[in-house]
C-alpha cells in the first residue's frame, strides 16, 4: 500500500494541544465567559441540581435541550464535545447490552436512560460552565467562596502547567515513536500496533515526571520569594484579588432566564408527563 503523508489539522497531537488550550483559557469567548465567575458557579449549581428532583422523562428531556443550548452559547470546542458525545453513546450502548444480558427488558433500559439523561444534563452544564471559566476567574471564584488560597492557586497553576506538560508529552512520545521497536505486523485490526502505541503512551510518563520534578524546585522557591505564603496569612491580598469581581446586569439576566427556563421545563413535563412503568 502506497503511503502518502499529509499534514493533519484535526485529530493530531498538535490539535489536541490547541484544543486543550482553547478550552482551558476560553479563547472562543461566548455568553458564559462574559459573566462573573461566582455567578457562573451558582448558575452551574442551579442547572446541575435541577434534574435530580424529578423522574419525569419529558422534564429531563427539556432540561437536556436547555443545557445543550447553553453549550452552544458557551462555544464549547469540538474536542470536549466529541468526547462527551462518544461517552454518552457508549454509555447507552453499554446499558442496552447490559440490560439484555441480565435478562432485562425495555423497562430496565428506560430506567437506566433516566439516569443517563440526568448525568447528561450535569455534564453539559459542566462543559458550558468550566469551558467558559479561565483559570484566573475560576481561582478567584473559589477564593471568593472562602476556599483555601492553596486550592485556588492549585487550580490556576495547574492550568498554567498544562500546555507545558502537553508539549513535553508530545515531544517525548515522538522520540519514543521513532526509536522504540514497533511490531512488524499489525495482526487482526492492527491490535499489535494499538498495544504498541498504548505502551508508548504509558511509558512516556516516566521521563515527563522526572523532567518536571526537576523544574518544580525552582517554582517552589520562586513562589516563596514572591510572597505566596505571606498571601495566605495576609487578608489584604485576598481583598485585592477579589476587588475586580463585579456582578452585572448580564449575570442577573442569565440567571433569571435560566431559572425561568428550568421552571418552564417542569411545566412542560407537567403538561405532557412521561414516566416509566
Amino acid at each position: 500500500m502506497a503511503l502518502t503523508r499529509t499534514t493533519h489539522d484535526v485529530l493530531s497531537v498538535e490539535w489536541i494541544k490547541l484544543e486543550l488550550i482553547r478550552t482551558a483559557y476560553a479563547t472562543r469567548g461566548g455568553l458564559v465567559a462574559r459573566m462573573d465567575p461566582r455567578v457562573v458557579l451558582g448558575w452551574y449549581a442551579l442547572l446541575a441540581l435541577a434534574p435530580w428532583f424529578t423522574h419525569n422523562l419529558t422534564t429531563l428531556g427539556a432540561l437536556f435541550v436547555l443545557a445543550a443550548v447553553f453549550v452552544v452559547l458557551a462555544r464549547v470546542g469540538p474536542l470536549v464535545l466529541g468526547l462527551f458525545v462518544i461517552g454518552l453513546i457508549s454509555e447507552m450502548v453499554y446499558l442496552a447490552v447490559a440490560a439484555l444480558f441480565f435478562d432485562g427488558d425495555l423497562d430496565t433500559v428506560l430506567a437506566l436512560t433516566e439516569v443517563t439523561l440526568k448525568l447528561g444534563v450535569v455534564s453539559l452544564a459542566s462543559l458550558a460552565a468550566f469551558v467558559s471559566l479561565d483559570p484566573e476567574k475560576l481561582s478567584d471564584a473559589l477564593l471568593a467562596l472562602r476556599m483555601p488560597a492553596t486550592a485556588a492557586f492549585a487550580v490556576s497553576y495547574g492550568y498554567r502547567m498544562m500546555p507545558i506538560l502537553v508539549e513535553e508529552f508530545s515531544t517525548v512520545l515522538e522520540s519514543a515513536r521513532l526509536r522504540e521497536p514497533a511490531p512488524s505486523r499489525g495482526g487482526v485490526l492492527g491490535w499489535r500496533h494499538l498495544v504498541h502505541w498504548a505502551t508508548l503512551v504509558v511509558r512516556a510518563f516516566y521521563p515527563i515526571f522526572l523532567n518536571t520534578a526537576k523544574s518544580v524546585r525552582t517554582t517552589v522557591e520562586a513562589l516563596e520569594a514572591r510572597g505566596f505564603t505571606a498571601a495566605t496569612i495576609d487578608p489584604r491580598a485576598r481583598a485585592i484579588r477579589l476587588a475586580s469581581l463585579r456582578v452585572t446586569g448580564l449575570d442577573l439576566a442569565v440567571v433569571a432566564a435560566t431559572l425561568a427556563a428550568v421552571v418552564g421545563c417542569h411545566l412542560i413535563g407537567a403538561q405532557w408527563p412521561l414516566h416509566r412503568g
Partner: protein
Amino acid sequence: MSAPIIAAEALSFRYPGAPTDTLRNVDLRIERGDFVAVVGGNGSGKTTLCKTFNGLVPHYWSGEFAGRVTVDGQDTFTSSVAELSQTVGYVYQDFQNQLVRPTVRDEVSFGPVNFGRPDHAERTAEALEMVGIEHLAEKFVWQLSGGQSHLVALASVLALRPEVIVVDEPVAELDPAAAEEVYRRLTALNRDHGLTVITIEHHAEFIAAHARSVLLMSDGSPVWHLPTDQALARADELSRHGIPAPQIVDAAARLGLPQVPQSVADAAAMLSEHRRAPYPDPATTTATTATAPRDRPATGERSVVVAEGIRHAHRGVRGELRPVLDDLDLQLHAGDRVALIGGNGAGKTTLMKLLAGIAVPRAGEILLEGISTRSRSARRLADQACYLDQRPERMFLKDSVRADVALFPRGRGVDDAEQLVDRILRRVRLEQLSDRDGRTLSGGQQRRATLGIGLAMRPSLLLLDEPTASLDVASRDDVITMLDELSDDIACSVVATHDMHLVAEWATRVIALEHGRVLADMAPAELFASPEIMRRARLVPPQVVELGLALGMEPPPLSVAELLDACADRTEPTADRTEEAPAWR
C-alpha cells in the same frame, strides 16, 4: 563609605548530607549601586552564595549555616525569605519555571498582590515599563519567546521594588541578541534607578561590557573582588576558572599591547595606534582566511537532501494558519556541515523536523537520500535521519545512558548492537557514566549522551537543535570538538544555532533563515562580513570578527589565531609578542 547593601562575615554552608562545605568562610561586601559579575567554575558555590542573599539559604535549603549575612542591615538568619525578597529579587537560570501565572500582567502583579500592596497596579505598570514590555501585558506566558520570558521574570521581581537584583546566568538560555537586551536593561536599572545588580556569568564579553566589578569564586570562597578592568586583566587566572578572556583581550595580550581593551572600537584604536593593524591587503589576508579548507564542497557531490517548494504553517490558538516556511528550496550534500541560523521563530526547528521526516510539509517535496518523506512513516525514515531535540532530557526515555543509546539498534535488530553501543559510548566519552540516568548528568555530558543516541541510529543526516545552548564555555568547546570528530560517521550534519563560535569553528556552510525563506547561503567568513544579514538574523558576530571588520580586513578573521596570522604578515613579531599583559604579573 556608606554601609554595604550586602555583607557576609565568616559565612559557611553545607547542604544536608553533603561531605564538604559548599561555601567556606566567605567574607564579602557588596556596595550599593554596584554591578557585580560573580564568576567561577562549576561547583564553585556561585549559585549557593547568591541564594544566601534572599534567605533561600538557610531558610529553604536547611543545611549547616555558620557566620552572618546582612542585607540592607537585616540579618538573613533572623528574617524570612518573604521579607528579604522585598529587598533582593532573584531571577533564575531556568526562569521559565519561575513564571507561575497565566498572563504577563498577572505574573508581574503576583508579588505586590501577595504582599497586599494597595499600589499593586502602579507597581506592575512601573515594572513593565522599566524593562520595556508594556506591549506584552495581556499575553499568555506560554506565548512568549525565551527573551521575552526572561524580561517578564525580571519585571516580576522588580514589581516588589527591590534594591538588589540577582540574575543567574542570563546568557545560558537566550539567543545572543536577547541576552544583550537583558544586559542593556540591567545596566539601565543600575545606572538610572541605582539598583545593585548581581549576575552569575561565564561570558567575559558581557562582563567587560556591563559589570562594574567582578567577584571570582573558587571552591566555595571568594578569591578576589576587583573592579572590572583590573579583573579582566587577570586573564590567565580567569581562564583557569573557566572564563576564557574575551577575544579582543586575548588578541591584545598576544600582540603584546600594554592596555586591556574594553570594546571592539577600543581594541581597533589600540591596534592602529601601535601600528599593529593588519592593513587590508588582499594578497595576504585572503590567503589566511577565504581559501580555508573548510569551503563548501563543489557541486556535483552526492545530495543527501533535496527540498523543493517547501511551504509549512502551524495552526494558532484562534484557528489561524501561521506560515513558518514559505516556498523554500534547499539542497544538502554529503560532506556539508551546515549551520542553520536565524532569530527565534525564523523556522529553524520546523525545517529540521521536516527534513527528518517527523512531519511533512503542507506543500512541496523533500527527498531524503532519494526517498520522498511523504512515502514513508517517520519511524522508518529514522533510519536515514535523526533529529536531536534542544532539551536533552526529552531524549532520555530509559533509566541509563547505555539503555538509551542501545534502544534504537537493539530494536531494529542491528547485528553486533552491543559492540556498536560500546564503541559509541567510548566515542562520546561516557563509558564511566553509562549506567547513570541521563537526567543526572551535567549539561555537557547530557549533550554528549544525546549525540551518542543520534550516532547509534547511524543516520546519513544528523540534525541538532541548539547543541551548545546553556553550556558553560568548557563544555561548549567539548561539544564542538566532538561534532568535529563525528563528521566521518555522518554524511551531513545540520546544526541550528545562535552560537557564532560554533559557526566560526565548525561549519562549512551557513544557511540563514528569515520569515521562512533562505536569506543567505554562504561560507561562515562571508556571513560575518555581511553585517546586514547578521543583524537580520539577530546574531552577534564573535569579537575577533568585529575587530577584523573594524580594521577593514576582508574577509574578516574567524579566530584569534587567524587575526594574529594576519598581523604577523604585516609586522615582524617583536619580543613582547609573547609577553603577557602587564596586569598579569
